[in-house]
């Protein structure tokens, strides 16, 4: 048993948590901005999936991961665009459209995979990492956290950046007003539609990027339905984050850690049912809410379309 407590294994577990958490972090950060602006984006799963497909396709055909990420973002955007059009511009029901978008992404990517890849299952070559100077020398933690693909650092950098944006920029004010009292934002001369559109597009791009990371760095290939519910988990993380990016990061990491824990326990030969371990993060959150229950307030106008002058 002690033989398992080796540097490579611990490193792999930690790196695995990060790898599992990163798509959730990216998509969760994206979702958070939509929610702040008053749009509940239930189509996140679909945006991740299309991002995964496009991201893989881009990286595989161009040979460049970065092009893959770009394609993934475009894929997410491609689904955010109808969301913006239908929900923000026309004010259609966000839950209906969100579910429809997820279904269509599932169907389309599976069809495309069927036509394109189902005979060859192409896979990407090994991903190069960028060791951060000094930090990556730390035992275990160093390689696990600081010898990763550069996108990992960028994603984590996005957390303080977004926190700053929400707290200290005018855009942050606009987003919050769009979610809490859109009529006030409108009266102040800022377009609610434009603000929300921006947020929805950002969500799409981030979800697409998360999906692309999942398919390229995470799996190195694309298979149908490969996000398997990550989008919905990211929605919950964004909501639990109550508008704060740091909480999304913590949630995503906790989630990844639980997944790694499942692996660790099993490899160590401990007989814990996987179903039980998978329940841990959500059970913990529910218990926290139950015992330290507090108003988990969401933006007042969440899911409400805005039409000027409507009483």
């Amino acid at each position, binding site marked *: 048993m002690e033989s398992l407590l080796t540097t490579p294994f611990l490193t792999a577990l930690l790196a695995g948590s990060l790898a599992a958490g990163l798509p959730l972090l990216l998509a969760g950060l994206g979702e958070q901005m939509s929610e702040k602006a008053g749009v509940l984006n239930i189509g996140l799963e679909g945006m991740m999936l299309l991002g995964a497909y496009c991201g893989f396709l881009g990286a595989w055909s161009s040979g460049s991961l970065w092009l893959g990420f770009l394609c993934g973002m475009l894929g997410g955007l491609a689904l955010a665009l109808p969301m913006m059009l239908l929900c923000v511009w026309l004010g259609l029901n966000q839950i209906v459209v969100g579910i429809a978008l997820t279904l*269509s992404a599932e169907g389309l990517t599976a069809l495309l995979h069927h036509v394109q890849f189902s005979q060859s299952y192409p896979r990407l070559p090994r991903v190069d990492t960028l060791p951060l100077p000094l930090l990556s020398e730390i035992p275990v933690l160093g390689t696990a956290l600081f010898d990763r693909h550069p996108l990992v650092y960028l994603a984590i950098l996005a957390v303080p950046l977004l926190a700053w944006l929400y707290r200290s920029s005018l855009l942050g004010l606009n987003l919050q007003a769009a979610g809490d009292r859109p009529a006030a934002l409108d009266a102040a001369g800022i377009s609610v539609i434009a603000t929300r559109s921006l947020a929805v597009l950002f969500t799409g791009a981030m979800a697409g990027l998360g999906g692309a990371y999942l398919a390229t760095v995470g799996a190195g290939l694309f298979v149908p339905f490969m996000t398997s519910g990550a989008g919905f988990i990211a929605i919950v993380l964004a909501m639990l984050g109550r508008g704060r990016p740091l909480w999304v990061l913590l949630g995503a990491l906790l989630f990844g850690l639980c997944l790694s824990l499942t692996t660790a326990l099993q490899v160590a030969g401990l007989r814990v049912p996987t179903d039980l371990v998978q329940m841990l993060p*959500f059970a913990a959150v529910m218990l926290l809410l139950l015992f330290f229950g507090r108003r988990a307030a969401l933006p007042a106008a969440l899911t409400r379309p805005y039409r000027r002058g409507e009483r």
Partner: protein
Amino acid sequence: MTDIPQIVGRLLQALLPLLLALACGALLLLLLERDPVSFYATIIERGLLSRLGLQESLTRSAPLLLLAAGLIVAFRAGLWNLGVDGQFLLAAVITAALAPGLAATLPPWLALPLAMLAAFAVAALWAALPAFLKARYGVNEIITTLMMTFLGISLANLLIKLPFNDPATTSPQTLTLATADRLPRLLGSTVHLGLVIALLALLLVHWAMTRTALGLRLRILGANPLTARHVGLPVTGLTFLAFGLSAGLAGLAGAVEILGVWGTVRADWNPAYGMLVIPLVFLARFHGGAVIFFVFVFAVLSIGGETAARRADLPNYFLLVLVALILVFLALTEWLSARPLMRKRG
């Protein structure tokens, strides 16, 4: 009384988006070098016109209608119960675990209702936590019900794999309720009594929500909880009631599916009907009649579509795209029909 033009208008409003979605789907089929006409003909022929297919479509509708009934209660009361899939699954497992034992000891007219009651109660209980958090701390129920779904699915699997596992089977599943002990079938068809239960439940819910004092109280709560407090409604009680009824009906859907069709639940089974019914209920604007129509259309599509896809040598994934198209076009026509009013109001 509704007059003829209004009925025609309604029908058009329901059929037009279907036609538009089918047209888009046809384009996609042409791109895939398939014949859209025969594809759609197969769907109709198999899902609606053939005796066998029609029975299947009706059978498939039963759990969907019950889920819809539950969602109508919650949505009208302003509670976004997005956790019906977890409630459904957990209740299904409990039903499957109890039913064989009950059927062995009690007469069927008692055993089946008891199993359904248990399913209703378990699902309602599962929703008590989100209800409590909502009523006590105002914790948003979208978050809690989604989390409870994740938990419910895992718990259901755990139950199947551990306490309720049928030792005779290799893959984990519960004991199986004998075919003879299941819900009786209707008039020699393969449609079971669950369809009648579902239709009755849905109509009852629709009537109660639109025509009774209780329904109005729930709608007031849904429209504005502050108003509910101001006019003196027991907000906490109503929240629990709405959650309980909603989840209970979702649980009943699980029970009916198990008692009418499956007889058992396997580990990792999750039909996730909720994710499909939720948009349908919104599109029907929480109206019982419209829900019946949409659910039936969806059932025909899923029964007939499977055959059509097989005959056209297409993966079933194509149907997902078709359903998504229909949802979007339905939502769009909804918007168009509401627009003249909006425009005048500004």
